[in-house]
């Protein structure tokens, strides 16, 4: 399953870039290049060989981490990636932490006060949370927190090694902008699973034993309701990675998304191709891990087998 998906992802990524109009060698050397030079470059780039063979070479190199040279930076792609990956990964992790740290208590709050007006309004707010484009949310956060209150920088990134607190400050607003749609999704989803669980027989049993409401909520209902939430975490991480492509550009964070867009701008398509492949494989990998996690957390799934 995992292997087939990864294989297909790589084939799709490879083939999409094959239909590219124009010759990559020509793009590098320019329109009025010397035909001998062109032929030589085509040979070093492997453009004279059949598509299937080129795919095999490309994928073999991608697996061993030999990603070739970037056309624009004239540096090995692997080195460039090593600089960029930590930024995107910190952004995604911080955003996921915010999503869960805010979404879970909020969902519990809404479910406990189901039907009362603050909970109804909060539910309505979650609709707004998924409707706002994350980059526009980022603008609004900049306006409120950076311009008005001067709490966070408006753009830029400070590496963790230099100043951990500064790094956290520079990543906070972008993570929050990315987290808000996720918070809305978790809140709404958890509310529904909590309400479903609270109608179960085991809750009635717990009540008839005379357990306190708070104990029932946190020790019994919440534990069961959180299990299905794990399944949407994979979805949220996927969305976060997609969203970070745009949000990194709002805050000029030197991550993978920022690199992707600059590379498209400079027509550095080998780099674009590699980035797309790696981001997609990252998504497949994360979803696989989430599936495994789900099996570990919910003992019933293991028993069913």
């Amino acid at each position, binding site marked *: 399953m995992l292997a*087939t*998906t990864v294989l*297909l*992802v790589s084939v*799709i*990524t490879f083939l*999409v*870039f094959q*239909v*590219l109009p124009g010759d990559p060698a020509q793009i590098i050397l320019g329109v009025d290049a010397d035909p001998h030079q062109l032929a030589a470059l085509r040979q070093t780039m492997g453009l004279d060989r059949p598509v299937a063979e080129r795919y095999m070479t490309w994928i073999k190199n991608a697996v061993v981490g030999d990603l070739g040279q970037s056309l624009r930076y004239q540096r090995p792609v692997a080195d460039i990636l090593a600089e960029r990956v930590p930024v995107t990964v910190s952004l995604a992790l911080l955003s996921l932490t915010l999503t869960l740290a805010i979404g879970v208590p909020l969902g519990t709050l809404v479910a406990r006060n189901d039907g009362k007006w603050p909970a109804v309004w909060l539910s309505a707010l979650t*609709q*707004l949370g*998924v*409707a*706002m*484009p994350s*980059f*526009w949310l980022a*603008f*609004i956060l*900049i*306006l409120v927190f950076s*311009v008005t209150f001067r709490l966070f920088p408006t753009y830029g990134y400070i590496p963790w090694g230099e100043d951990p607190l500064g790094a956290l400050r520079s990543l906070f607003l972008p993570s929050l902008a990315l987290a808000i749609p996720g918070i809305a999704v978790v809140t709404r989803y958890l509310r529904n699973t909590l309400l479903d669980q609270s109608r179960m027989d085991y809750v009635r049993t717990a009540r008839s034993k005379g357990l306190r409401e708070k104990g029932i909520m946190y020790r019994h209902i919440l534990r069961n309701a959180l299990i299905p939430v794990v399944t949407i975490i994979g979805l949220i991480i*996927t*969305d976060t*990675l*997609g*969203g970070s*492509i*745009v949000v990194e*550009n*709002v805050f000029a964070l030197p991550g993978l998304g920022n690199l*992707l*867009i600059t590379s*498209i*701008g400079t027509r550095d*398509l080998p780099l*674009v191709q590699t980035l*797309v492949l790696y*981001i*997609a*494989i990252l*998504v*497949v990998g994360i*979803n696989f891990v989430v599936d495994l996690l789900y099996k570990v957390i919910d003992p019933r799934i293991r028993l069913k087998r």
Partner: protein
Amino acid sequence: MNVNYWLRSKPLVIGGLLVILLLLFMLTGLFYTPYEPNEMNTAMRLAPPQASHLWGTDNFGRDIFSRIMEGAQTAFLIGVSSVSIGLTCGLVIGAVAGYFGGWLDEVIMRFIDAMQAFPGILLAIMLVSVFGPGLNNTILALGLMSIPSFSRIARSGFIQYKEFDFVKASIAKGAGAWRIIIRHILPNMVSPLIVAASLGFSGSVLAEAGLSYLGLGVQPPDPSWGRMLSEAQPFIINAPWYVILTGVVLTAMVLGFNLLGDGIRDIYNKKG
């Protein structure tokens, strides 16, 4: 059809109203805008909202309200066309996978899984980076991007309905596969497909805004809210209304179609 029953669903009413308002806003823009959307006025650069320019002006002194009106046409055009592409392809793919099943289903679903490994906008970015930006390519990219989710919905519908007695009866009467798919099963799937189309519409509008913000989507002179937002970003401090108003209209459209979709789903879930 019981109108009162429909009016009791809050998401449906609010979403429907938002969509109707935006539709009127867009249609009005076809015939009338307060100013010519591209008319520059250097004496009125970054003017705040006032009587002559209700929503202020941008860095070239162009009327923001008129430009947002014109942008609505692009948003609707992109939403409708990309959903049409996604829905049509998704229906054919979903029908083949769901109705015929077997190894074909297996192959198609593996492929759909792989396509969904590209997080939302990444697939569109990849396609646009190869085909080049512009209105038509953006529509094509967003249409292709939405095929997997439409295919899944269509497939599950066909799997569910092909076991029904009315389908078995048609087979017994000698009806062909495509006749059953189109004449007998498809009419039963209208509600879930409308819901999917509505949610797909808002997804496309959001993705277009992102693409155009990055400079990969709609190009000038075609108007686009996403590009307006990227033009507004440098003036976020001097002209916050530019960023805020453009985004509010964009959010209103996404919200409207999301609520509309949710509302319709609630109603047919309760009935079914």
